[in-house]
């Protein structure tokens, strides 16, 4: 379970990114966070694994306080939280397998990871993760030689290699075309259902949010303005989240 208690984030320079957020996310949930850019979606996601440190309040993951965790505890907590990124964040010059093995770093000694002498089990986990997103045959291809959709699937495999209990996805489809976006979202959904990994996805396409999410959280200017089931959300709710009427650019559109 992930719990936010009165969480606020003020960036150096005075920008208030999150304001007094209280939130509980249950195990196995598939949560989608929507909001305009600058509404605090990325900040909310990154405060879960402490890539952004809250300036107020506390975040708990499985009962452990992330905000006050020591360096060692934080590594431990982070190793249970997978993350995928808008720009994939692969090392383009390394092959797919090496990129996925990055997800095993927390379990392997520095010497072994630097010399490339990965334990057999860790390699096995990496291969299994690639198999799960059906891209195993590209294991020895360089990251830069893959298409955007394939790179994001490698990104998912890297997160899966951590054997996480929580998966954070920060705008995972913002750099992809509509068809590929749905493919990537279906993999996330499949992983959530098959492995029971709590999944939290930032999106700004409202139709995609409705199509894949179960629970929807709306952020506006750092405040929680909507929290409920995707099935109950109305256009008026979306207009409240966005603070304006819905435009066609807020929708990813149908496949064609």
């Amino acid at each position, binding site marked *: 379970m992930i719990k936010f208690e009165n969480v606020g984030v003020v960036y150096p320079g005075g920008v208030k990114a999150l304001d007094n957020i209280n939130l509980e996310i249950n195990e196995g949930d598939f949560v989608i966070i929507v909001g305009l850019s600058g509404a605090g979606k990325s900040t909310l996601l990154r405060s879960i694994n402490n890539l952004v440190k809250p300036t107020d309040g506390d975040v708990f993951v499985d009962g452990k306080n992330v905000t006050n965790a020591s360096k060692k505890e934080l590594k431990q907590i982070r190793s249970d939280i997978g993350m995928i990124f808008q720009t994939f964040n692969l090392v383009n010059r390394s092959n797919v397998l090496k990129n996925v093995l990055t997800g095993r*770093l927390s379990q392997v000694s520095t010497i072994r990871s630097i010399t490339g002498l990965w334990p057999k089990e860790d390699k096995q986990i990496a291969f299994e993760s690639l198999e799960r997103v059906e891209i195993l045959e590209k294991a020895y291809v360089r990251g830069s030689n893959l298409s955007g959709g394939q790179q994001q699937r490698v990104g998912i495999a890297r997160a899966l290699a951590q054997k996480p209990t929580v998966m954070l996805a920060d705008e995972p489809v913002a750099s992809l075309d509509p068809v590929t976006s749905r493919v990537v979202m279906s993999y996330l959904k499949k992983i959530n259902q098959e492995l029971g990994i709590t999944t939290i996805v930032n999106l700004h396409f409202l139709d995609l949010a409705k199509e894949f999410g179960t629970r929807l959280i709306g952020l506006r200017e750092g405040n929680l303005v909507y929290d409920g089931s995707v099935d109950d959300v109305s256009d008026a709710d979306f207009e409240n989240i966005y603070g304006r009427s819905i435009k066609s650019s807020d929708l990813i559109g149908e496949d064609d």
Partner: protein
Amino acid sequence: MINLPKKPPPSLMVFAGIPTAVLFSYYCFFKVGFNLTDFKENLENRYLVTDPLFNPKWSWAIENASEALVETIQIAILASVVGCFVALPLSFYASQTTNQNKISYFLYKSFLNLVRTIPDLFWAMMFTVAVGLGPFAGVLALVMFSLAIMGKLLSETIDSIDPGPLEAAKSSGASHNQSVFTSALPQVLPNFTAYFLYIFELCIRASVILGLVGAGGVGRIIETQRIFLRFDRISPIIVLILLVVILIEQFSVWLRRRIL
């Protein structure tokens, strides 16, 4: 006919800058005593230098200088390899992308700046005092020289890498060293190789000069012959050095193309 926007007039920088630059250059000529009459008068004594220079003693040079020339190359190879590999870890500490600790970043950066500020000839003089005359002093001097250049170039390259993969590794619970090694190092390896080849070329040239202060290599022979004004012996050595430099440059161009 569309209305084209008005072209802005030349800036004040151009109006004021060009005359200032011309005046300043004229002032410099005047100050350093540049005048063509001196040049012309001295040209009449040119036979002292040009005659021997254009009558190279090839057999003497090949017999007496080739061993020293090989030593020069050996000094350059050893120094650039050691210097660059010492600089590799230091560069990651001297970049804010991979070292968030402001104090240690500042210390590493300052250390590299200090090493770079001291001229290679001065390093050579210090090391000849410390370890005695000979090629070892030359190697040490050029290690510092390579270290300084590599540290500067590589740490600035690390500043501009994509921080995304580092964040990804960090978010998975990897230690700092692990993140840097798996996510930052692969991004700069091609640059590192290119810089290494460049520094190796610089070292070949610099190691010739180092002989002048007794730090080994072919420079030592040039220095002794220069004292006796034996330009007929120096000119073939210079041609030999030129050949070596060209060969190495060709090799590194070829290698760079293969690697990058």
